[in-house]
């Protein structure tokens, strides 16, 4: 065979062999497993970890979608969310405080979920009214309620019974009269009513709404801190401090957690807190106060309005997420009644879903009282200027009033002048935030006492 033929055979052979080598078996098409992430806000307690891990494993078993989680403390959360928005990097799903929802909607960093409601996500009727109201504004939905932080009135039923109110105070008049009676019968109690002066002080809003007032006008253009109804409401709780002494001056240094700690110590007889108040009690404290604690909705004011603060957290979906559909599936999963009831059982967080309250365990303990409080829930304005901005004037209002009281500068004009000054600041902030949002309509509380 001459060289030319040998070369031809080799060349052809090489080509045939290479073709055969490239004909490998095409493997079955396998989808890459999807992993989504969620940021939870708060402390990574054993209970919180148990809940999220249980839920994640159930979700994965059902859908094959993996979920990773991380906890961010509330103190760091606002800054971390801002950083995530600026960097376009972070978790897929974010737990969001309800009072922050409107502000962060304005950043355009979150997905509009309006079209998903009633499809992959539950519809509005699934949720308690107070919780659903925090999902967005102007007819748009950007957040799905996850759990409510309903602040009921938790009181010492034994002490209030002695004072003549076995079902607890139902009105402001009851609260004032009964607290004075308890103070007279039990002078050793440090503060009959706990209203912490440090931290956020959500009770400012509760008292406004109990007097049928609110922070921002229904059309969202004007702030109303110094509306006469709100001045009257503020004067009411200030009088508990300066006139009655049923709120002790030591409250000026107390945070929300301090009030709860002192309740369990027996130094506070009444407080306005969420179901999670149970979490900090020791076994001895639980035993000592067994049968002596009751929960109901906060009392009504002078105009027939009976409301209390409902906050909590929603779930929002970051726009930079590359697994939006899977994330929505997880958000829907978290709103199932049995999953909501599990969170209530493990972490004492009030469900945002109505059907969760029908589950057997939710009819025990203090849950019926908090369910009643949830029926009377009202919320901070879902307004873009609110979260972190106009909202941060609430603790300033409380600080200014306490400063006047402890410095000896308090007089009959203090409440009005503080609220006037705060309102000026609030209006400036509202105006500089773009003023009235499109389609905003948030009516003030209406009388609901039967």
């Amino acid at each position, binding site marked *: 065979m001459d060289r030319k033929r040998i070369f031809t055979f080799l060349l052809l052979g090489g080509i045939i062999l290479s073709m055969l080598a490239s004909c490998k078996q095409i493997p079955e098409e396998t989808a890459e497993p999807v992993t989504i992430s969620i940021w939870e806000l708060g402390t990574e307690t054993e209970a919180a970890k148990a809940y999220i891990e249980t839920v994640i494993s159930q979700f994965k078993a059902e859908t094959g979608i993996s979920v990773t989680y991380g906890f961010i403390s509330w103190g760091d959360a606002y800054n971390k969310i801002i950083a995530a*928005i*600026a960097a376009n990097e972070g978790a897929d799903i974010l737990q969001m405080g309800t009072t922050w929802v409107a502000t962060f909607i*304005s950043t355009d960093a979150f997905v509009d979920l309006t079209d998903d409601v009633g499809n992959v996500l539950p519809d509005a009727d699934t949720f308690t009214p107070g919780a659903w109201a925090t999902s967005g504004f102007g007819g748009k939905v950007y957040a799905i309620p996850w759990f409510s932080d309903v602040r009921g009135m938790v009181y010492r039923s034994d002490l209030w019974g002695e004072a003549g109110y076995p079902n607890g105070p139902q009105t402001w008049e009851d609260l004032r009269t009964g607290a004075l009676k308890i103070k007279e019968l039990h002078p050793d109690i440090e503060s009959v009513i706990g209203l912490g002066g440090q931290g956020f002080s959500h009770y400012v809003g509760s008292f406004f709404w109990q007097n049928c007032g609110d922070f921002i006008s229904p059309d969202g253009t004007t702030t109303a801190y110094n509306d006469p109804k709100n001045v009257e409401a503020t004067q009411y709780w200030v009088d508990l401090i300066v006139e009655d002494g049923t709120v002790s001056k030591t409250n*000026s240094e107390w945070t929300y957690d301090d009030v709860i700690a002192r309740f369990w110590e027996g130094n506070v007889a009444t407080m306005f807190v969420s179901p999670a108040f149970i979490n900090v009690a020791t076994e001895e404290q639980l035993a000592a106060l067994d049968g002596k604690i009751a929960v109901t909705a906060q009392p009504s004011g002078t105009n027939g309005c009976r409301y209390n603060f409902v906050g909590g957290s929603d779930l929002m979906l970051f726009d930079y997420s590359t697994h939006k559909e899977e994330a929505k599936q997880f958000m829907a999963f978290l709103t199932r009644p049995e999953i909501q009831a599990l969170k209530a059982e493990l972490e004492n967080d009030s469900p945002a879903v109505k059907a969760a309250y029908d589950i057997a365990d939710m009819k025990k303990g203090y849950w019926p009282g908090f369910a009643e409080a949830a029926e009377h829930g009202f919320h901070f304005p879902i307004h873009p200027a609110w979260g*972190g901005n106009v909202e941060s004037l609430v*603790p300033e209002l409380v600080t200014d009033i306490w400063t006047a009281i402890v410095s000896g500068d308090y007089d009959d004009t203090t409440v009005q002048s503080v609220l006037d000054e705060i309102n000026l600041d609030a209006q400036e902030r509202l105006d500089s935030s773009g003023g009235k949002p499109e389609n905003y309509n948030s009516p003030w509380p209406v009388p609901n006492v039967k």
Partner: protein
Amino acid sequence: MNSQSYKKHSLAYRMIFPTVLTMLIVHIIPIAMGIYISFRNLDKYTLCNISKTVFVGLRNYINLLGSLNSDFLSSLSTTFRFMILTVVISYILGLACALIGNEKFRGQTIFRGVMLIPLVIPSVVSLTCLRFMLQQNGIINQILLDLHLIKEPIIWLVGRNTFFVILIGNVWIKWPLFFSVFLSGMQAIPEELFEAASIDGANYFQKLKHITLPSLKNVTFITTMLIAVWSFNDFNVPYIMLGCGYTAVPDAANLISLNIYRSAFFALNFSSAAAQSVLMSLISFTLILVYVKLITKPGGETNA
């Protein structure tokens, strides 16, 4: 810089390059960014995309300085008082304890060690403990009540007293620096000077005035400037002692640093916060220049 010079010093240039690069990334670029933001309108609406911000000129600065009642000017006034009082009290305490520590007595070593405790304990720990001690039912009120110096507990952490609370906290963590620097300085003063002064009939205070203090002038200058600048910029003390996060700090204790923090992370007005930071830096820089000018004689010697 010619190539010969570069070759001669190339090792040095290469060795300082990482530091220069780090300073560029950690200091220079953020400072430049801050100045840039201060002339624009970076807030929650534009946070997602900084290119959406527009140039607003001096608007942010005018808003801060335009009114005598502005929060910025009020916090500036509070910060100046805070800085001056911290320096004065820390100087007096540091000098007094250094003079005692410089004397030979039994337990001198233990005394010196105890004086340095605030310097070695992390400030977060010190300030948190101090906060607990200053609560209405805290140990400080208890001691004052037991000594019959007060009839009812003082409310330290709310109201006008908060200025004194942050002053106490700041002095607590800063005065040991004066103590350690003065003590070291005193150790370096030749003993012969004091012996000669004794022979001449000088008393303790004359020796202090004519020998000790002049010998310490250089270290006094540096330490005073450091403590003044650190106090002017301080954020940790009011933040830790008067509550974090949502708790509003009373006007009496509202330092500029807190104002900046709240503007940025509560009002989400980053441009205003940046403008305040620029003004704060300019003021610090001016103060340092004025101080150096005042204490420097022609020829470069210090008057401190």
